């Protein structure tokens, strides 16, 4: 019940609603979660930039009433890295689809994680390419039907959490639109975390994933989402236990040298005064 008592609307660009998203699409829930997190944190919208990639979910920046940067397919994190480095005091949130973040954008994802730069990634994982009409994504569950795997996907599936952890992200969480109350909490934790933070939101695409895999109506998709995940005690999940399962929870929440901080120190070492100081 994110709205009760919070002025979430102040963080929504209501003039462009309704969104372009399909009826029942989960993207709106995550946007609501993001706006709710902003409301909880009472951020100054002029000091926040939401950077989006290209895809249905990539349109998020249009709907959140902060600064918005809708970039190119796959490159959002590279844009965000430059932006954050140029003005390290800005809060930068990056919203990407699974294809955007992990197919074409996979390289920037692992490198931003490696640097542990203080960005918050919200990765909308609907297991498919929504915007272009239902093609296979690297996150498409094995055997699922997509318009490019009509007889069932034969490509193995990326586990966002595993990749993020291996690449060096210091905050990694997964939740779902079924667990919509969790979304703002995870996002708030992620934004507050000083380092590279990833919140994966499993989200329903009724139009393509749902229809192609005959999951049923929009509510059936939520049920399916619930059934394929199993919450972990939220505090901290032990990675080893997860293999083979798609659990939700917080998988890492660790402090490590953050990149703008490291850069600031480097500048100081050679006599320069960087924006942070």
């Amino acid at each position, binding site marked *: 019940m994110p709205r009760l008592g919070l002025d979430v609307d102040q963080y929504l660009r209501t003039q462009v609603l*309704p969104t*372009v*998203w*399909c*009826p029942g699409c989960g993207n709106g829930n995550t946007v609501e979660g993001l706006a709710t997190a902003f409301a909880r944190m009472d951020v100054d919208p002029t000091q926040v930039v939401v950077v989006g990639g290209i895809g*249905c979910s990539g*349109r998020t920046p249009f709907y959140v009433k902060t600064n918005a940067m809708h970039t190119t397919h796959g490159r959002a994190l590279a844009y965000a890295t430059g932006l954050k480095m140029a003005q390290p005091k800005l809060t930068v949130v990056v919203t990407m689809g699974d294809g955007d973040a992990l197919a074409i954008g996979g390289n920037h994802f692992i490198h931003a994680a490696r640097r542990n730069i203080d960005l918050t990634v919200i990765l909308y994982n609907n297991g498919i390419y929504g*915007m272009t009409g239902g093609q296979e994504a690297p996150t498409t569950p094995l055997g699922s039907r997509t318009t490019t795997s009509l007889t069932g996907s034969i490509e193995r599936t990326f586990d966002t959490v595993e990749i993020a952890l291996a690449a060096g992200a210091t905050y990694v969480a997964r939740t779902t639109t079924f667990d919509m109350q969790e979304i703002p909490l995870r996002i708030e934790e992620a934004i507050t975390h000083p380092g590279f933070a990833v919140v994966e939101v499993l989200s329903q695409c009724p*139009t393509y994933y749902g229809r192609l895999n005959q999951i049923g109506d929009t509510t059936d998709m939520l049920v399916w989402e619930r059934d394929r995940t199993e919450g972990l005690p939220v505090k901290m999940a032990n990675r080893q236990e997860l293999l083979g399962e798609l659990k939700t929870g917080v998988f890492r929440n660790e402090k490590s040298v953050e990149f703008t901080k490291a850069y600031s120190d480097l500048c100081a070492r050679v006599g320069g005064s960087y924006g942070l100081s």
Partner: protein
Amino acid sequence: MASVERDQIRIRLAGKGGQGIMLGGAILAEAAMLDGLRVAETQEYGPEARLGATKADLIISNRQIAFPEVHKADFLLCLSRPAYLRYAKTVAEDGLMIAEKILREEMGDSPNVVYLPLRASALSLGNELYTNIIGLAALAAFSGAVTKESLENSVRSRVKAETVLANFAALDLGYKLAEEADSSRLVSAAASKLSR
């Protein structure tokens, strides 16, 4: 039907995402093809088309079709409110709009609009999804752009086998609605365009 003398008929099908506009365009185009006519069909794509107003345009002709888009429609089928708001103005001066009856309340009457209870009729057939087929049939009736036979053949080839009969019923209903509504305009609207 004076298919030999006519030059070209410009048709626009408009509705919102999920109303089967794309399928309607394909069915009508194939019907024209089966009638031995030339046809070019184009559609609107993209995320906006999934939700908001979307359209399919057809040019049907017995000569080579050069420019393939419809700027002024001889016939516009309009199934939804956003489509009405966006495309009403694209009907040619002597063109005809066939619109979902629910819209009359808000939009009001005007001489080149015929309102038909398309959705209600579809629901009477047990499924709102027949709305587009009923509308298509009505449009075919008013425009004379394609023969009913071809329309049936085209529908048969494009819908699931188990729904063919229901779709045929939807076609009949569409023709009937058109006749009942304003039989004076049937075909003649088309004929007027064709005797250039």
